[in-house]
């Protein structure tokens, strides 16, 4: 009986569910990257919203980054609206980058507008 109880305990703790649409294992939570660029597109879509950001790179190049956010309802609860970002907006975004550096993408952490105002509801 004791063996069964211990096995059950381990199993329960280990059966970690995927909360969101997919696992977040692709993101590197030990690193943060700050992107400063121009909003190309703000996708207010399910299952994730996305900020498409044009970021000036080296030698006059422009890198296109994709920033993954939650679902529209989760953004709305956090004070975001479909019109919070518009193409051409200059913003600064902090992300947890993709572990695969060849993928210019990451998980949203926070964003500030060109006026320094933090976007979304403040805690």
């Amino acid at each position, binding site marked *: 009986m004791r063996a069964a*109880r211990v096995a*059950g305990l381990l199993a329960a703790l280990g*059966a970690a569910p995927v909360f969101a*649409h997919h*696992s977040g294992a692709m993101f590197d939570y030990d690193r943060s990257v700050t992107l400063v660029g121009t909003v190309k597109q703000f996708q207010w879509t*399910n299952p994730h919203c996305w900020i498409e950001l044009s970021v000036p790179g080296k030698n006059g190049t422009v890198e296109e980054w994709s920033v993954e956010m939650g679902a529209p309802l989760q953004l709305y609860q956090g004070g975001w609206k479909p019109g919070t970002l518009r193409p051409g907006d200059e913003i600064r975004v902090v992300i947890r980058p993709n572990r695969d550096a060849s993928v210019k993408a990451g998980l949203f952490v926070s964003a500030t507008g060109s006026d320094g105002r933090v976007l979304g509801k403040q805690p």
Partner: protein
Amino acid sequence: MNVRRARLVIFAALLVAAGSFGQPNGGDRARFFATLPNWTGYWIADDGVMNALGVSGRTEHGAVDYSKMKVNAPASYTPEWAAHVEAARKDPTRELHKECGFPFPFMMESPWVLQFLITPEETAVIVAGREIRHIYTDGRKHPSAEDVWPTPWGDSVGKWEGQELRVDTIAVQPSTFPPMVSERAHFTERIRMVSPNRIEDELTIEDPVALVRAWQTTIPYERVAGLDRMVHGDCQENDRNPVVDGKLTIAPAR
């Protein structure tokens, strides 16, 4: 017998008189409806996990203490079922799985807000992820064995004991979401409002295949402030997370 209980008894008698799917009409229905609690609004599990997610849908640091989840409370599994659970946990394809809705009982503690839509005949639990449970309170019983089959949300019937909804659920498809139990699992719940901004769902599972003894947890809900309508999710509208070369990745914008 207090007045509310007397009304409940009268209502139940009317249902019996009308047949198992009959509905009392007019004043009787309205009077019974008036005795039911008002749980309007939107609710989210107050577990320090689901109500702690940010606009990314995750935590900033990625680390989530799964052990805080009420539906992930340790279970006393039989040795055979514990091995089954452990195998599921070690499944290397688990990380590649993408969600398109949550089964019962995990849906009662999902990242989405939910609502309790109460009528005399049924209470619907509607989750923003578009999962819906129909808890019939019109006096019916579960379907007979030949008329019921396992589904992700099972078959639920309920009855009001004063302001508390008692629910009985069977025929839930086994899944890898906690708590992992078998198709033979029998779920009972006592759902009640404990204060104007708090509801609790006391959930008990008995399962002769998976559990050595009954498993129990209580899922607390807090009222979601500032949300005045339900906005549903959808897993397919703009799915930019394909699996490429055995890994989840992010696709460019279309």
